[in-house]
């Protein structure tokens, strides 16, 4: 009986510890490493923007929340103290430029400074949606150059 109780206790404690470890692991699981993650979709930046403009709901289903790799000609980089944004402009709307805006991961801020308008670049990141003027990408990294 004692042996049975002992075994039960050991199994119970091990189970409890595994449960706590599992909870702590899931609770603290790291964010996706977007710079290393494989893109789910590879697309021309202009085509991606046009898909959102022409059929928003269909494009949202296809792209929102996905890791997307875009190829296109850089229009400009907007930088301030806290972030750098790669901007592709494809349209002129009533509130100015419209296109795709990609916030770079902090590590890519310095790299982005070597780029010139018109350079062909490949940017990868999490596409978070379309706000009726721009398609927004977050956690972006430069694949090329």
């Amino acid at each position, binding site marked *: 009986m004692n042996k049975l109780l002992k075994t039960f206790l050991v199994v119970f404690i091990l189970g409890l510890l595994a449960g706590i470890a599992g909870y702590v692991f*899931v609770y603290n*699981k790291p964010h996706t490493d977007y710079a290393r993650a494989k893109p789910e979709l590879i697309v021309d930046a202009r085509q991606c923007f046009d898909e959102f403009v022409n059929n928003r709901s269909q494009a949202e289903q296809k792209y*929102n929340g996905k890791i997307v790799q875009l190829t296109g000609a850089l229009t400009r980089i907007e930088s301030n103290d806290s972030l750098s*944004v790669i901007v592709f402009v494809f349209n002129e709307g009533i509130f100015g430029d419209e296109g795709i805006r990609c916030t770079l991961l902090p590590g890519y801020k310095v790299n982005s400074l070597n780029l010139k308008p018109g350079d062909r670049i490949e940017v990868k990141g999490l596409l*978070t949606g379309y*706000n009726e003027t721009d398609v927004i990408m977050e956690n972006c990294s430069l694949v090329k150059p």
Partner: protein
Amino acid sequence: MKKIIGLLIIFAVAVGSVEAQKYITKTGKVRFFSDAPLEKVEAVNNQVNAVLDVASGDMVFKVLIKSFVFEKALMQEHFNENYMESDKFPVSTFTGKVTNISGMDFSKDMKYTAEVEGTLTIHGVSRPVKTQGTLESKNGKIEGKSVFTVNVKDYDIKIPSAVVKNIAETIEITVDVVLEKLSK
């Protein structure tokens, strides 16, 4: 014919002056903060679209829900999938007005208290909002700031009972935008 050309010129000037009164940003910041008994949760969105028409006081904010970044990945996942249902409701908007803008002169570096009224749409639910903020003109730009609270229940956001002590019923929203004159 001359009359028509004259009218067209007046129309073009009028349209131009209206456009010149718009200030915009695409890198506005919106932060929310939940202070619950078991946990403090904070998230920031750095790519918020905002427009302010300094003539009429009209303002519009557009916030993509998936652009909110959390410290913990699990929280970000739950926020998008369970609470905000961001696939179904990808954008939150605020459409409103600075009701006392007529007394403000943005040609000088000044700071004003702004009375703001409008409609806030979160999770597909639109509700009236009335709050205060500040508008400060500095070097040709306008910095807008506001802190207000929203009740989670008002926007039909369901918090499971298991995590009810992890998420506050009232969420503090902080808005910080630097608006630049729209040049065309």
